[in-house]
């Protein structure tokens, strides 16, 4: 039984105390209940445990509609700034739920950690790239990636990173689910509802008209750019798996022509990612700093920049696969992908993705 389990809880942080103060004001007001899933979830409670607050913070999609419509926003003496408080709290929860813990601590200094890890991975790949066949690139096998990095090495390293990411994600979800004292098991209807919310970004809608990026006005641009990034990422994923099917089931060996499914999916997906990321970065750079959390913003930037580099090097690799630059590019691309998986699928927004909205 869950109740019999002993939980070691850290003393309540300043972030949690701040979150509770604000959420209690929100619960007495309730004007924002039409904006997103956070407010109906607040209304279900009278008292807020640290688990409740983590849950609410991760339910928040940072659309900021509540900040601009709040009669108690700064400079009011209540200084109610829910998006910022929740962003700070999310950062805490990423650390709390992240698995394994040491990586979570690393994540605290994330901007640097991300770059260092990416660099290490790149160097590792570049080093391995030299071993099997020095003369592959530019030879008659031009465009054959496995000639640069042997398929075994590629699968071993990427596979290990991917499996680790999956494990870390699952452990993070478990920690989150336990801490929020979710009354029910993860059942099909709530998972289905969660997936629907994920795919439509309903909660990034500000009640229908989009987010507040710069001021009181609403805009769908952030949602659309996020869609572009998200679906672009899925297309890239689909590209990889189509290629795997081509090779292992049909026995068609890469490189594939430009009009083949893996290349088309990858090209369109990569381009969509670039557009999405550029748009999101532009919004972040020009956004009103009022409701933003400085610490989380750094993480967001490093995540977006890594994603951008991943997509850009992927596209570049495709364009230049028959040139001598291919070997180096491939190493950089794979290095960035691996570090993305390592850093961002584990300690970072895993708890966000695990959030199920109440309905």
């Amino acid at each position, binding site marked *: 039984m869950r109740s019999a389990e002993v939980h070691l809880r850290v003393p309540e942080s300043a972030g949690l105390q701040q979150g509770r103060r604000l959420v*209690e*004001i929100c*619960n*007495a*007001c309730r*004007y*924002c*209940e*039409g*904006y997103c899933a956070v407010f109906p979830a607040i209304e279900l409670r*009278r008292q807020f445990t640290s688990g409740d607050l983590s849950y609410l913070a991760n339910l928040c999609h940072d659309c900021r*509609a*509540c900040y*601009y*419509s*709040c*009669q*108690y*926003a*700064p*400079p*009011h*003496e*209540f200084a109610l700034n829910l998006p910022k408080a929740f962003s700070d709290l999310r950062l805490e929860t990423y650390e709390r739920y992240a698995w394994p813990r040491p990586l979570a601590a690393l994540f605290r200094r994330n901007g640097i950690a991300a770059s260092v890890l990416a660099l290490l991975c790149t160097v590792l790949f570049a080093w391995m790239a030299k071993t099997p066949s020095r003369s592959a690139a530019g030879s008659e096998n031009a465009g054959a990636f496995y000639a640069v990095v042997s398929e075994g090495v590629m699968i071993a390293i990427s596979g290990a990173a991917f499996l680790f990411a999956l494990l870390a994600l699952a452990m993070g979800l478990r920690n989150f689910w336990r801490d929020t004292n979710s009354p029910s098991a993860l059942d099909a209807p709530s998972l289905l509802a969660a997936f629907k919310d994920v795919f439509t970004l309903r909660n990034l809608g500000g*009640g*229908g*008209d989009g987010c507040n990026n710069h001021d*009181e*006005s609403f805009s769908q641009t952030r949602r659309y750019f996020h869609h572009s990034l998200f679906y672009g990422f899925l297309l890239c994923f689909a590209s990889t798996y189509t290629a795997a099917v081509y090779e292992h089931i049909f026995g068609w060996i890469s490189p594939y022509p430009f009009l083949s499914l893996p290349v088309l999916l990858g090209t369109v997906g990569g381009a969509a990612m670039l557009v999405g990321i550029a748009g999101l970065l532009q919004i972040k750079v020009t956004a009103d700093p009022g409701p933003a959390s400085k610490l989380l913003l750094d993480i967001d930037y490093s995540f977006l920049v890594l994603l951008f580099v991943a997509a850009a090097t992927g596209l570049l690799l495709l364009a230049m696969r028959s040139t001598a630059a291919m070997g180096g590019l491939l190493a950089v691309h794979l290095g960035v992908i691996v570090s993305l998986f390592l850093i961002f699928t584990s300690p970072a927004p895993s708890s966000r993705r695990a959030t199920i909205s109440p309905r």
Partner: protein
Amino acid sequence: MVDLPQSCDVLVVGGGNAGLSAAITAREAGASVILLEHAPKAFRGGNSRHTRNLRLMHDSPTATLRGSYSSSEYWNDLLSVTSGKTDERLARFTIDGTSQLLPWMKAHGARFQPALEGTLSLSRTNAFFLGGGKALMNAYYAAAERLGVNVLYDTEVRSLCLARGMIREVFAVKNGASAAVRPKAVVVCSGGFQANIEWLREYWGDAARNFIIRGTPYAQGVVLKNLLEQGAAPVGDPTQCHAVAVDARAPKFDGGIVSRLDCVPFSIVVDRAGRRFYDEGEDIWPKRYAIWGRLVAQCPEQIAYAVTDAKSEKLSMPSAFPPIRAETIVELAGNLGIDAAALEATVRNFNQAVRPGKFDPGLLDDCRTEGINPPKTHWARPIDQPPFIGYPLRPGITFTYLGVKVDENARVIMQDGRSSANLFAAGEIMAGNILGEGYVAGVGMAIGAVFGRIAGREAAKVALR
């Protein structure tokens, strides 16, 4: 230096719901419009920024309203809350006007919550703004600026030069510098005087110092007083204000909705001396909440305490301030700062006077007391389950009733009975024409919206003639 044009077609004083409705309407009619808002941008919108809904007449369900709410039902509700202190012609005119509001509001950026089934008893009569009144004000300001209304914040109108029923000049102050404007027409939408403690003291004495003002601190009544001094006809009882009991820990101004308490029917309420003074269970809360501001105002030091126990805590909405808890009544009295022996005796006498009944928080049940004075006629249950809970109460002032008299074109009527040639009024500054007493949810915003649009239209007509 004040960056203010020396003249314009229409000058709007005050940037709440009525002011923006007037400014937008006048601008769309082709007039050049300046809007002067006393508050800085962060606190713009007057009391409208604390509102949440408006009461609308409608013959059939809409996306934001259930069922229907006829003109006659609306009128009867208004008649009942005002005890007849209303101008029937203007009231019916307002009610009919509300049926036209939704499309106009939506066209100017207003967004509404979908009609909620069951949860809110007002979903048939009132449309709820998505995000509340500040979100509505944000939308209106954006619309006004898009249309080219010249909005100046931090700009207080100190006086208007009113001669023979005509406004000649308006004097304003911004950042300590003064400026004068000669508009062709003026719409005053600057609210009542509820935030002016000195003015309230004229009627309430030093008790006014302990009042909490629920809304904007900018409702100082400067324009209202200035116009009344120059011969505008008054309307509404100057001594009266809408007052409810709010949490005594609320900020002095701008506490808004979160300081309200609705625990009174399920509590006993005592003064500083630990004595009860009124029947807490007289009627359902929406019908009685507005008398408790006055009751608390009449208590020594203008403070009272609602006391109840664990079983009643969850019957009321959570407050922004946590309840004060204790394991015993004596301890609770200490935490609240009232006489412990007196409170203990009051609770003991009350508990002994409670007669058995079937408790039902949703209707006038038969749980009452016998043999104590004052009695508690409904929802009386012994206070005996720790932790015991207390809330401190103070009078919370929503608005004042004194205003200027207007005709149905929103023209200000002078004491000689003639309507002004170019001075119009909308919103709280003239709401007393329709709401001479009492209050019913969303009617203030309805009056502001209907008369704001009329005033804007008529002012533009005068200016462009």
